[in-house]
Every structure is written in structure tokens, then in C-alpha cells.
């Protein structure tokens, strides 16, 4: 038996993706250019092979993404022949729907929610597939695989459908939609080991590179015109890499020499800091993620 290649977590994720394609009319895969959504794309490829992935990708672009991520996104879409939809936070700002944050911790991260909800309405998406994992954060530990959201995209944590065995109930009312998390049960290490085993391409900023940065609150921030910086915060050049990739204003770098998948995986294995420890958005308060989820965040 053991001679047959079989990965139980991969199999579970493929099962979930096929349920999405079967139970919903207009699913979409939320693509950020980060390793988790890249892993989702590979899983979707496997789930529907030899047919094409039967849903488009949606990228909510804050305008503050790392250029390496955007370049990677466009190459991936071209290579796999996928349909990509991009909606911009800048448009939501220009339409006066959201206001740009100001000051030291200004970020467009929370503004994304409005752009996302508008895109869901525009395209009438009934299922949005995301790369969130339960091990990332405490509020996510209680998230369902099929998570029902109301017309306002809100998450009601006290009133969730129980999920029994691997039976998924995607029945919803008009106006509701479902967030789907196929890699709920994966850990950060699982994702990295999978990327290594499958030899999946990822953006270059996940590997060690020389970058202009500055230090604040014990975190390493990218020095860039989109990131607010006090005059006294000195810019230095360091060898860094990113452990999670989001908006430039909310993703901190880590000092690292790891420049291959092998050394990155080893570094994750040895790490004593959690993945979201380098997320500036989660540092805002202990319940930061839960609050964002309730109003319709990813």
C-alpha cells in the first residue's frame, strides 16, 4: 500500500475543489500571488485534469503589491491559460467608497474588503475560494471549509453549519455566498513541503535577496514610496526574504540567507516565530483577524 503515492491532505483539498465546481454556478478563486493561493492553483489543476480549471482567478490589487508578485501572477495566468479578473482598491478610493488611511501605520489592507465585496456583487460570484488555513490564526481555527456569508459578506462565528465527515453543504439563499477554504487543514510547513515536492514556482521575494528596508517595532519594513516612514527611521540594505506575501504596507520581511526551496523549508522547520508574527495587520490587536473576518475580509 505504501508504495502508492497518496497524500491525504492533497486528496482532501481536491475533493473540496470538485465539490465547489459541482455545487456552485459561479465560483472564483481569490488569488493574491502568495504561496497559499499558488498552491490552490496547483490543486485546482490536479482536480480537473485534463480539463482546464473551470473558474477564473480574482485578484484584489491594492496598488501596493510587490512588483515581483504582479509579474509572477501574469506569467502564471499566461502559462496555464487561466482567466484573470483584477479589481483595484484605487478605484474604490476614487469612487469615494473607502478612504485612504493616513500616518505611520497606513495600509490598504482593510480597504480591500470593500473592493472584494463589490467584485462579488458585480460578477454574482456564489463561491469564493481562498487559501486561508486554520493554523494561521486563532479566529481561523474555527472556520468552516464551506463558510456561509450573508449579503454583507459577514461571518457569524456563533451560527456556523456543522461539517460532518466530508459531506459539504453548499446550499445558500439568494444574495448569500460561500467562502471556501480547501487547504484549511494544512499547516505552513505542509504548504512549503508541498511546494518543494511538486516543484511549484513561487515569486522571487520568498527567497533571500538584497533589499532596502527600515526597522520599526521590531519588524523589518520595506522602504518604498507606498510605505510611510518617519525621517529618523533609517534605511539600510539587508539580506531578507518574505514569509507571507501581501500588501507591501502590511507584510514584514525576515532576515534570511535561504535562497533555495530546501533552505527555506529547513528555515520554516526551525523557526520559533509564527507566520503571522510578520504580519503587521495582525499586530493591531489580539482580535484583529476576527474583527476583519466579521465584516467580510478574506
Amino acid at each position, binding site marked *: 500500500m505504501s508504495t502508492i503515492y497518496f497524500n491525504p491532505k*492533497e486528496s482532501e483539498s481536491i475533493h473540496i475543489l470538485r465539490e465547489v465546481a459541482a455545487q456552485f454556478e459561479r465560483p472564483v478563486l481569490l488569488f493574491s500571488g502568495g504561496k497559499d493561493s499558488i498552491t490552490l492553483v496547483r490543486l485546482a489543476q490536479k482536480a480537473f485534469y485534463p480539463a482546464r480549471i473551470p473558474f477564473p482567478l480574482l485578484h484584489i490589487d491594492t496598488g501596493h503589491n510587490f512588483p515581483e508578485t504582479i509579474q509572477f501572477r501574469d506569467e502564471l495566468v499566461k502559462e496555464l491559460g487561466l482567466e484573470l479578473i483584477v479589481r483595484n482598491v484605487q478605484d474604490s478610493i476614487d469612487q469615494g467608497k473607502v478612504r485612504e488611511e493616513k500616518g505611520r501605520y497606513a495600509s490598504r489592507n482593510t480597504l480591500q474588503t470593500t473592493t472584494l465585496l463589490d467584485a462579488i456583487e458585480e460578477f454574482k460570484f456564489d463561491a469564493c475560494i481562498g487559501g486561508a488555513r486554520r493554523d494561521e490564526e486563532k*479566529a481561523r481555527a474555527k472556520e468552516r471549509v464551506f463558510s456561509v456569508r450573508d449579503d454583507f459578506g459577514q461571518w457569524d462565528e456563533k451560527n456556523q453549519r456543522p461539517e*460532518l465527515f466530508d459531506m459539504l453543504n453548499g446550499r445558500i439563499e439568494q444574495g448569500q455566498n460561500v467562502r471556501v477554504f480547501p487547504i484549511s487543514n494544512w499547516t505552513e510547513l505542509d504548504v512549503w513541503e508541498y511546494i518543494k515536492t511538486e516543484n511549484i514556482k513561487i515569486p522571487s521575494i520568498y527567497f533571500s535577496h538584497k533589499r532596502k528596508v527600515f526597522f520599526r517595532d521590531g519588524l523589518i519594513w520595506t522602504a518604498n514610496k507606498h510605505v510611510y516612514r518617519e525621517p529618523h527611521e533609517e534605511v539600510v540594505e539587508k539580506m531578507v526574504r518574505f514569509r507571507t506575501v501581501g500588501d507591501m504596507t502590511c507584510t514584514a520581511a525576515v532576515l534570511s540567507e535561504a535562497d533555495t526551496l530546501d533552505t527555506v523549508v529547513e528555515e520554516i522547520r526551525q523557526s520559533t516565530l509564527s507566520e503571522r508574527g510578520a504580519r503587521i495587520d495582525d499586530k493591531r490587536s489580539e482580535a484583529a483577524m476576527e474583527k476583519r473576518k466579521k465584516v467580510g475580509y478574506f
Partner: protein
Amino acid sequence: MENRKLIKIATAGSVDDGKSTLIGRLLYDTGSLTTDKLEAIEKTSRQRGFDYLDFSLATDGLVAEREQGITIDVAHIYFNTDKTNFIVADTPGHVEYTRNMVTGASTSQVAIILIDARKGVIEQTYRHFFISNLLRLSHVVVAINKMDLVGYDEDVFLKIKADFDALVEKSNFQTEQITFIPISALKGENIAKKSAEMPWYVGNTLLDHLEVLEPEDLQEQAFARFPVQYVIRPKTDAFHDFRGFSGKLYGGNLNVGDQVTILPSFTESKIKSIQLFDQELEVAVPGASITITLEDEVDISRGDMIVKSSELPSSEKSITATICQVNHKPLKIGQKYTLQHGVNRVLAKVESIQSKIQTDFSGEESTEALKLNDIGKVSFKLSKAIHFDPYQVNRSNGSFILIDEGTHDTVSVGFIF
């Protein structure tokens, strides 16, 4: 993922049995609590004036939970050792424990039942064991906790074991499926390291015990069942005539060349190929998500089932099942639901409620309705036949959920006789 085996565990215990402490301890002892998480726990523990680390803070994540010091919902916790990945479904022990524990146990192979050494076997222990038995978990670990508070006394341990053994006799479990371990989660005795305080205990530590469990041994031996999830038709030049039937395999192996029957049409064919992405397999094992092609052009759609022709399941339009009610809306005679059996959906009507079953092994009583957290025997009439095995024989092909036609919520889970 480097061939690490996967073990899925459900934990059960009453409010103060120290369940969260145990999980926190398992995370801590396997190096799965990162420095920043540990610092957050230390900080909050200090703020609350505790002189120990409150590991429950590692798992109780929602604002309402921290405010009230309770666990609201099933939480999933992950840790690994060099050889094994573990997924723990942590189910709250107080109100609504039945719904939560049934949910957590449905995706698990092993249950850890916690007992407070000072209190021994209590009513809640009966209920947790009842659910482990109902759900047919492969293995139960009875962790007798807080041994430090009873002077690490072997007699206390033996007394509790004897009381629990009396329960085992009322269940379907064999004695070798149950393991007793004396522990102190707070002090870390017999969790990852062998306790010097309890030299009389010669068995494995909890972590060693969980590590020697083999997924193959925990998996049931049953007939192969392949419910078709999705039909793959690429309609591209390279795969013009390709028609693949994709799904997850349950129960037993399928081989290329097997003579198969497609239900509900009872058409026969042969397996032409088995694929996992671009790999061609000779044989598929239970749990694998695969795509099958057949020798003949057969009309197959989602919800159909492919089985070996020599191993047909039951096909019935009337079924009786043990029902656990998981929603506030009660189940009543005459009510209609959508019944989801695997990926197949039919309409179901409640014909009769034969009894409500006490979850402490004390018997059954008659009832008009099943309320949230009730368990009972119910008969249904279906709009179309479903193709099932008794839950006793095949967990996945013997279970279903009921979906409310109005709210679309999952309101019940059923285990077919």
C-alpha cells in the same frame, strides 16, 4: 509532504478536566508553540494573575470565548512530530457537547477522553464514550488527568480503569481498542516524557502511544465505494473523447480491469484507467481523490456510484437510522428534508421516530420530536433509492446529513442501520 503519516484525533472532556491544558501541553512539548504565541500566553496568564501558563489561551481564540472563559465551537489544532502529522478536533465539553463532539468525531479516527482523577468516571464520561462508540472510532485513549492532585496513586488509577471497563462491556469496543494512561497535563507527566512520579505505570506516554498508531490499522476494511463527484470532459483537441469520472474512493481498493457496476442504472463496465492528475495508477487506495475512465460509453452523472460488480451495496427507498440533531429546529414526524448521502441528494420524509436514545447507555424512550443534541432512531421514506452500507460496516457510505428546505442549514446527521 515527505511521507509523514496523518492521525486525526477528537478530544473530549468536561469543563474543568484540563483539556485545553492538555492540548497546550502537547503543542508545547512537540515544539509547536512558537515564541510569539508562547509570549502572548505568558502575558495574558500574568495579566489574569495566574502563577502557571494557561494553555487554554492557545486554543480559545474568539473574543466571546476569552471574555467568558469558555470554548464555543470545534477548534482544529495541528502539530507534528518527525514521523506523524496530527489534527486535533477540540470539542467543548459543556452545553451542546453532543453536536460538537459528533462533528469532531466524524472526521477523527481516535478519541482522547479526559477524566479528572479526583472525580473519576462521571456522567459526562458516559456521554463522551457513548459518542465514541456511536461514531465507531477506531481507538479510544482514556487519559486520567490531574494525577498530581491524587498523589500519583496507582489505586486511584486502577479504580477508574475498573469503572470504565464496565462501560466498555456495554459498548461495541474490544478491550484492545481502549488504552488507559495516567497523566498530569499541567506538570507534563506521561505526556511527552515518562513520569518518574508514576514508576508503577509501564505503558507508553501519551505522545508515544499516539505515534505508534498506524493509519492503515485505524482504517476500516470494507468494500470499495466510488461516488462520482464530477464528470470531467475537457473538449480540447488533445483529449477530445475523454470522459473521466472523478471522486474520492472509500472502503477498499479499485484496480484497472475491475468489473464494475454503475448505480442506480446497474449498467456494467470495466475500469479502463485510474488517474491522479497526470499519473496513471494500476490501483487506487481508499481516501485517494482520483479520476476513472471506463471501457464502455456509459451515462453517468454526479451522485452515481461505481462499485465492483461482485460487491453491490444495499439499494433502498426506505431506511432507518440513528439520528443526531445538530440544529435548533427539531426533527418531527412528517417533515421533509433534502438528504445528502456522500455527494448524492434525494428528498426524505420522516415516517416515524421510534425512540430517543439516552446517551449514558441507560436505554431508550419514546418521543414525538428530536431536539438539538438529541439522539434517536428514525425511519425515512426517500424519493429515490440510495446505495448504502450499514454504518457498522462502512462509515462514509453509511452516513448522511439532512438539509432544511427553508434555511438550507445542516440540521441532522444520520447513521444507517
